[in-house]
């Protein structure tokens, strides 16, 4: 039921995003906010309910309320529901404090910093409010986002409720990045820190590192569209796993390279570039060796669909902004078409049958 409802809701958010946004009463949702709603719905669908009434209730609340809270926060409206969503995730993970360990501690610190930052910013993430009245609030919110990403990176493999806080961390980080101090450099340090967290599982660290790099990119003005794509890649990789969803990060990396190379080599672009390189290398390491091979279940369908869309047609993500990915999209579509054609021909001609045993040259 959750999968079907989540798929329908994600589709609804997507329709709103492609239709150019929507206005309900006094609340206007931009296409980007609706796209964030779609992504967070897809992420929330992958949370596995555990036995117990609280957990059974948490998942439906996350699938419905979490995306709405994220969309409102991105759209410049109140971010208090988003804080409530993070708190709900934290409370859901609290009974397993023995296994969650430092992840729970980092999430608690993150919630505290977010609450303090929102108190300074009168409850919303609107840049105007932060720029004029609450610079300290922006710094607190950036620190909160970083702490939440650490919580994601440190979360055990089977801890789903702490994994989904990557969504709120990205929302807060993406909105706040241009207004807080030294975000790009901080993001680079955080990405490296996540990469060297030896005890944490690879499948968690890869999306957390990508998310940190996305926040670093968001601090560089011309790279914000690339940051949006990288954030989307981090979300789908957190939902589906690096082994299956890694192609979603390729267009984001291309867009980041194009955006960063176009500007001057000052501290912020260089730091953001370092963060992206470290995150991509770490994703490759996770795909190449360490990350477990997940089984693609029905709950991952919405996230997989988003990953396929991002991997194959990133230029159609117009709500993210101009990404200069037209040539990439043309090439990837051609490459996929040729690969499928060759595979079909190979299967039809028997080239892909299991190989026959080889025999020794002495006649046996």
């Amino acid at each position, binding site marked *: 039921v959750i999968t079907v409802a989540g798929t329908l809701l994600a589709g609804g958010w997507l329709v709103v995003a492609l239709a150019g946004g929507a206005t309900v009463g006094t609340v206007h949702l931009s296409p980007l906010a609706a796209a964030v709603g779609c992504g967070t719905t897809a992420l929330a669908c992958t949370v596995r309910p555990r036995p117990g009434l609280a957990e059974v209730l948490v998942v439906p609340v996350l699938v419905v309320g979490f995306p709405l809270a994220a969309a409102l926060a991105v759209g410049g409206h109140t971010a208090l529901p988003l804080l409530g969503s993070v708190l709900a995730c934290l409370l859901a993970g609290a009974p397993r404090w023995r296994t969650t360990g430092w992840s729970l501690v980092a999430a608690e610190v993150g919630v505290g910093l977010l609450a303090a930052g929102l108190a300074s910013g009168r409850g919303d993430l609107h840049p105007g409010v932060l720029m004029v009245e609450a610079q300290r609030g922006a710094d607190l919110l950036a620190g909160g986002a970083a702490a939440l990403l650490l919580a994601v990176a440190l979360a055990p493999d089977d801890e789903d409720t702490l994994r989904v806080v990557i969504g709120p961390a990205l929302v807060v980080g993406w909105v706040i990045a241009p207004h807080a101090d030294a975000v790009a450099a901080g993001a680079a340090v955080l990405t490296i820190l996540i990469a060297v967290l030896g005890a944490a599982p690879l499948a968690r660290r890869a999306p957390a590192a990508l998310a940190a790099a996305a926040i670093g990119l968001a601090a560089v003005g011309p790279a914000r569209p690339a940051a949006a794509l990288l954030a989307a890649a981090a979300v789908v990789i957190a939902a589906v796993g690096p082994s299956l969803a890694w192609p979603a990060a390729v267009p984001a990396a*291309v867009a980041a*390279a194009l955006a960063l*190379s176009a500007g001057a080599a000052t501290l912020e672009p260089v730091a953001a570039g370092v963060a992206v390189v470290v995150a991509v290398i770490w994703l*490759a390491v996770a795909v190449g060796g360490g990350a477990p091979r997940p089984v693609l279940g029905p709950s991952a369908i919405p996230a997989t669909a988003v990953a396929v869309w991002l991997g194959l047609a990133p230029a159609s993500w117009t709500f993210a902004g101009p990404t200069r990915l037209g040539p990439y999209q043309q*090439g990837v579509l051609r*490459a996929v078409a*040729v690969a499928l054609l*060759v*595979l079909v021909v190979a299967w039809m001609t028997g080239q*892909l049958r299991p190989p026959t045993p080889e025999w020794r040259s002495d006649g046996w």
Partner: protein
Amino acid sequence: VEPPLAVVPRRGPAPHRSLRLGAGAAAAAVALSSSGDAILLAVLLGLVSVDLAVAGVGALVALGVLARWGTTSLASLAGIQAVLGPAGVRGDLLAVGSSWAAAVALLVTAAALRGRTTGVLLGLTAALVVAGPAAAGGPAAAAVRMGAALAGGLLGAAVAGRLPRLALAPALVLAGAGALAAVVA
């Protein structure tokens, strides 16, 4: 009944065979048609060889192309070379050297791998980097493009497996040096 001393492959069918075949076809299509992106081509080369180091060399070569020409679009790279001349000939010494360093890094990578198919693909990519003008640029450009692709592919196939796998390390260094030279140029 299985005869004695049969050397049955330990893992049965190669786990990445379909993936490698598809990625190889895709890489050939992207390189030959000059469509897509250099970073995408690097990822495809990494998939063909199932080797992170190969993808790393390809990515560094792509970053070198980006630093020299301001784009990673293969179509733009071919178009620029059709107008200005092959990248391995035209330009100042450092820029030309960066292109040749990238090409040599790709060929060294081909030499460090066993498969001839991978060698051909890496050779094609090397040809694209030093002499890959768009064929639509005229008969001369088409001849340069075809000749370079043929030479690169044959050279890649010829050197495949000639060096130990450790040669991937100098290939990475060379590709990085090429990218750095392109940045400085």
